[in-house]
């Protein structure tokens, strides 16, 4: 018996489309228009990105609210060797980001020059893609907001 391993190309396809529905659809349409939406939960907190159902209580959610385009890094990981298809081809940070006005965090990329520029609690803002199509990658990523110098009399 030959020990040669036979090889053939295999293309996995998903050849149909599906509707994104009233909540995820609204979020994605908002991205196309440069707006970020969350959704209010029964306890008044805002889930962003929004879900049709509360992930903890399974209650249906309907009240979409706009959230801010800047927020806080809750945790991050330095991606020194980006993989194919990831948001940036140079080293960047993955982060869980809580946008202003939201109570939960979203996973996205932060374009920082090095790990030394990253810290938990730092402020970041959205970098929009110029051409937007209603997709999570309409947000190219986030960039650090330089820390404000303490205000005071100029010398």
């Amino acid at each position, binding site marked *: 018996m030959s020990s040669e391993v036979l090889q053939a190309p295999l293309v996995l396809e998903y050849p149909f489309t599906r509707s994104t529905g009233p909540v995820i659809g609204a979020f994605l349409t908002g991205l196309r228009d440069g707006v970020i939406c969350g959704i209010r939960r029964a306890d008044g907190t805002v889930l962003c*990105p929004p879900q049709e159902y509360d*992930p903890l209580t399974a209650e249906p959610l309907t009240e979409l609210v706009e959230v801010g385009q800047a927020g806080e890094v809750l945790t991050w*990981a*330095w991606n020194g060797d980006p993989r194919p298809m990831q948001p940036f081809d140079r080293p960047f940070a*993955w982060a869980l980001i809580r946008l202003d006005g939201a109570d939960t965090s979203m*996973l996205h990329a932060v374009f920082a020059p090095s790990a030394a520029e990253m810290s938990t609690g730092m402020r970041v803002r959205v970098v929009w893609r110029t051409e937007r199509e209603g997709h*999570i990658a309409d947000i190219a990523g986030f960039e650090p907001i330089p820390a404000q110098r303490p205000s005071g009399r100029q010398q």
Partner: protein
Amino acid sequence: MIDVAVVAFTQRQEDAISGESEVEFMVPLMEQAKASVGLTQSDMGFTCSGSSDFLAGQAFSFVMTIDGTGPVPPISESHVEQDGAWALYEAWVKIQCGGIDTAFVYSYGKSSPGSVRDVLATQMDPYYVCPLWPDSYAVEALAARLMLEGGHVSERRLAEIAARSRASAASNPHAVRTDPKSVAEILAEDYVIDPLRPSDLPAEADGGCAVVLAAGDRARDLCERPAWIRGMDHRGDAHTLGVRDLTSSASTRLAAHRAGAAADKIDLAELHGPFTTSEHLLIDALGLDEDSTAVNPSGGALAANTMMASGLIRIGEAASRIWRGDGDRAVAHATSGPCLQQNMVCVLEGD
């Protein structure tokens, strides 16, 4: 409740099984498991398997493996697109329904043809997360920093877990990461993705395992010291990372409570923690004291992590030690999903 025990277990794990298909390497494993207790496929009241069509790259790939069991005359069977631990759970429920006293469970995965680190991005939210392709190391690294900066664990503690796994794996012929390393050597490793080092990551493997379950007197006939399943429960946390506490495993805690894990001493625990960080959270959630409980005597998933089989292998490893008298009471754990999203706890006891 009907008493059900694990009475046979076989496994194979290698860093890459390149010359054989899943069916080819599973047939001998399945035959060995059944033959070890003198049974054939026609003796099995129920058969349940766990595997992933997505990983195999082919729809209904599991059907070919069912053919490999020798299902003639036709058998009663089922399949879960999950780790085999969940197939074992289904078989346990089936035996509880009555009418059968044996079941055959197997699972397998071959991830080496692709990059499992990247493939696992496809289990994330399909609209919000997957299109960004965060690989599994990156996702765990986000949890790791929360744990480290929140004071839930130290890098030294993670290195100790990694060093213990390597030392234990040295005597496990099925482990693939067996070279010993000291805590200092591990702490000197460069980060793969800050804050995780190579030794914090699972040692990916190809392979599979097979288990025979039997009830009551049938189990006593087949096995000198059956490993009785005294409790088993599985629970899930929210899929969305941003809405849950990544510094503890609430679903493991709940599953352990419902399975009665803390009702008595635990001699050994086989935990399916793919990362050192996950193993730390599991030890905490299960309330294990490493002075009185041998944690992952096989080396665990850090030493060999076979997709779709690693959880069932934990149950088999724990049961084998009860057969041998290495312990009287064991906890086995299986996980699935990002950052310990779904967790199963199984309590095993010898007579």
